[in-house]
């Protein structure tokens, strides 16, 4: 009789505990990177998707936490202007960078870009994390 392929049982992780702990220890960006890896390993895990969304939300909340909120106007950093090839930007990030002139606010960017608002804000947070832009508060 041919042996039946055996699917290994999906591990049941306590994502709430793991993600909460990682947020405290490593901060939202390191946690987000780990979650991207975990999502690749467990694409069917709906709870994991939810925890990834919570971390993305935290990142966007931190971006908007300054007193100016959506009225803040991002600026390109000297590092970026000196050596922009060093930054491995996606097409969306490149498009956003092309709009930044130090006067345009986050709110105006949301109106100008064709992407959904959350993706735009998340990409702005990512650019700030990579030190391609600064967002004066």
């Amino acid at each position: 009789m041919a042996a039946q392929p055996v699917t290994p049982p999906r591990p049941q992780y306590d994502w709430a505990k793991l993600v909460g702990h990682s947020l405290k220890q490593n901060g939202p960006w390191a946690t987000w990177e780990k979650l991207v890896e975990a999502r690749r390993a467990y694409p069917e895990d709906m709870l994991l998707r939810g925890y990834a969304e919570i971390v993305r939300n935290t990142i966007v909340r931190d971006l908007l936490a300054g007193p100016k909120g959506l009225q803040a106007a991002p600026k390109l950093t000297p590092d970026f202007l000196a050596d922009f090839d060093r930054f491995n930007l996606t097409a969306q990030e490149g498009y956003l960078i092309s709009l930044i002139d130090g006067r345009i606010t986050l709110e105006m960017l949301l109106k100008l870009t064709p992407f959904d608002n959350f993706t735009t804000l998340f990409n702005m947070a990512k650019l700030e994390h990579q030190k391609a832009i600064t967002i004066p508060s």
Partner: protein
Amino acid sequence: MNELALSLLDNIPTAIAVAREDGSIVYRNNAFRECFGEGADEWMAKNSHAVAGERGWLQAFFAEKGHSVDLDYNGRVYHVERIPNAGGSSQMALSFEDVTRQREAEQAKSDFTSMIVHDLRGPLSGIQGTLEFVLSQETARLDSLYEELLREASRESERMMGLINELLDFSKIESGNFDVGDDPISIAGLLRRSVHSLGSIATRDTIHLVSAHGIDLPMLSGSEEKLTQAIINLISNSLKFTPSRGVISIGAQVVREGGGPRSIVITVTDSGMGIKADDLNNLFEKYKQTKNKSLRGGGGTGLGLYIVKQIVEAHGGNINIASIEGVGTSMIIDLPVRHVA
């Protein structure tokens, strides 16, 4: 089983039986014999087989696809439950509780609720209409205090209508009259309208309510009205528990399989206070609410998430909650695209 255990089982009022997957009964206590008599063997055997592609309940229990079910037998309703950790892998211990009177009482309660709710909606609609009319009259020149009081009355009557509608949905679900139909639904449009309808409340509470989805989402079929109600309910919950300057994002992504769309995953995520792990397990049950105190008042019936779950399941989907205390919560709805008309 030893004699003491057998004697104990024969003297308890609950009907107990041990069955194999093929439906054969290897043990039955006295209460089971009294309830089911000689017809039990045939009945159990019938329920162990798949009928029209659907698993029989006993087969489903063995496949770990269920652990309790309500069944009709000779005009009575029995709640059958699997007794955990009893019976081993080839056989299963089951308890049978006669819940006929309980179910009749629940039906009567449901009918009564439905009637009361219908009767409450009529006069409340009249009050709402009158308030809206007075507030819309530019020539009325209301004193600012009176205007504010009227607006407060209008807001509260709207809230009361929400609670009444929740009760009405609940009674429909309980009576089995909850049909979602098969109209075409544009999920992108539905989410955009849901965000738009609560945008002013989010702005008032200085919360960023943000869309996190594209427009190229496949169509589903079902009830646009009911799904909108479910999404609005989830966003409203997030608004209650998210502090000022927080973020609520509404996302949707297509999950693909074999080159085509398999399902759409909708997420409603907030940067609110999160939910305690103990509360997460039963949040979708009737009358259950988190122990968290709403930041913006407005207690509910405790039926909101129960209704959301019923709506999602009526569309063939499922809902999960991810939450981290002090960080935020995400509601994840997985809706299959096989429902496309």
